[in-house]
């Protein structure tokens, strides 16, 4: 009889943990963190391309100091924003990060627009290669952001629906995560076709 009781208790405890969403919430949070890591990595990738791009453009378009300056400054600013896995729960940190990245994106598309005016630059193989890489990176950023937002939606739903909301408010006490809002005009990759 005692064995039944023990087996029964084990069964009930297992049911409770799967039924109340404790495991689901934890898993979803890890997925969100991983997706955020991807977002950061793709932005980092863009950042790494910039010095090379600036150098190449500088060689052909010496008179565009202002635009080049703006890109360099934006890049420096992105570097100062603290990024960490915790920031996805904090609206201010997210807003700051997004602000910096969108300034960066704006400066970059202005630079590419300027490059249109220099035929020699456009014909330069190095510049074309950089453009290829930049296009690819912008696309990756889009993909990573979309996926991150999906995981956030999934996580936020999982902590708000019954009975998971009880589990969360009593045991886990996790905050809803912030989605990556599309910044005006930056929702599509800058088109740099020739």
């Amino acid at each position: 009889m005692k064995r039944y009781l023990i087996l029964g208790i084990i069964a009930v405890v297992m049911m409770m943990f799967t039924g109340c969403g404790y495991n689901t919430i934890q898993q979803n949070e890890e997925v969100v963190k991983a997706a955020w890591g991807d977002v950061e990595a793709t932005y980092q990738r863009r950042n790494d391309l910039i010095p090379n791009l600036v150098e190449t453009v500088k060689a052909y378009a010496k008179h565009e100091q202002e635009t080049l300056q703006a890109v360099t400054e934006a890049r420096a600013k992105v570097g100062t924003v603290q990024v960490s896995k915790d920031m996805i729960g904090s609206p201010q940190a997210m807003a700051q990060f997004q602000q910096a990245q969108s300034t960066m994106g704006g400066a970059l598309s202005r630079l590419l627009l300027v490059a249109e005016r220099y035929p020699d630059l456009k014909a330069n193989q190095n510049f074309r290669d950089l453009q290829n890489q930049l296009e690819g990176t912008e696309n990756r950023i889009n993909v990573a952001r979309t996926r991150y937002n999906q995981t956030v939606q999934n996580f936020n739903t999982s902590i708000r629906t019954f009975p998971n909301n009880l589990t969360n408010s009593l045991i886990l006490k996790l905050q809803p995560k912030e989605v990556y809002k599309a910044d005006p005009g930056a929702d599509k990759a800058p088109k740099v076709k020739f």
Partner: protein
Amino acid sequence: MRVGKGSGKNGAAIIKSRGKASLARPPGLFFIASLVFLVCAGSARGLDVPPLKGYVNDYANLMSRETRARLEQELKDFERSDSTQVVILTVESLEGDVLESFSIKVAETWKIGQKGKDNGVILLAVKKERKTRIEVGRGLEGRLTDLTAGRIVQLVINPQFKRGDFDAGFLSGIRAVIDATRGEFKADKVKRASSTRGIVSSFMPLIVFGAVCLLILGRISRPLGAGAGLIGFPLFGSMLGLPLVAIIFLGFLGLSLGIFLPLFFGGPFGGAGGYRHGVWGAGDGFSNGGFDDGGFGGSGGDFGGGGASGDW
């Protein structure tokens, strides 16, 4: 937003028209009609991903029959030696969709490439918009970089497409992709066994849990245990999205567990070792059931938006 508003209007129209027509027609019909309308409205957004037929999915009929057969063979051989999956898709038109977002949608649906290696490549050509894209799986981003993919698109494929020579464009493009990715991965023989073992080990807690429930129910009454096994196991299976064969198999497994488990432990509870043995045996049977249907399909490769596009 817009859909919600539309359905609200639709609902109002239904109520209004029902006042007149309620005698003539059953109200359920309106409900069904509006449901159908809503479903259609939902699916009309963007271009649907066509089904994966093989290595070459030439929906826009750009290739000749011989080229298709030749590419099919080449890509099959390449997967056999390197396990890297390269797939071609041609579509008539994007129907307003953006090339890159359609491409990643295809990648996410088809899951080309081996799971864990993420070694899939999709070559996409759109006839009407005259666009080409190479979508590269995460595992191949080191070899087939955006740069390499961009050069293949812009220097190898597109010039030939521009001339209207699609056969040559696909043949040389695919060859360039294969050359760029060859040697990055090797096909391994033990892959299948290890992946089924992974599946079994992830289901193990569920099976053990189910067996414990069945044991308790079966001790109360044998038909109850058998019935619970027959219904409960397949139910679990269908909730996990398993194929029909596996679900039927689970049904038998549940039925036999429901009948025999209480028989084995009919006496006093003492044989913990025997218990474990019985359950693991069942688990092995499950794994041998397998999901391998021998057909072609993506194996769970992951894509992160790498690759390059170009116009022709």
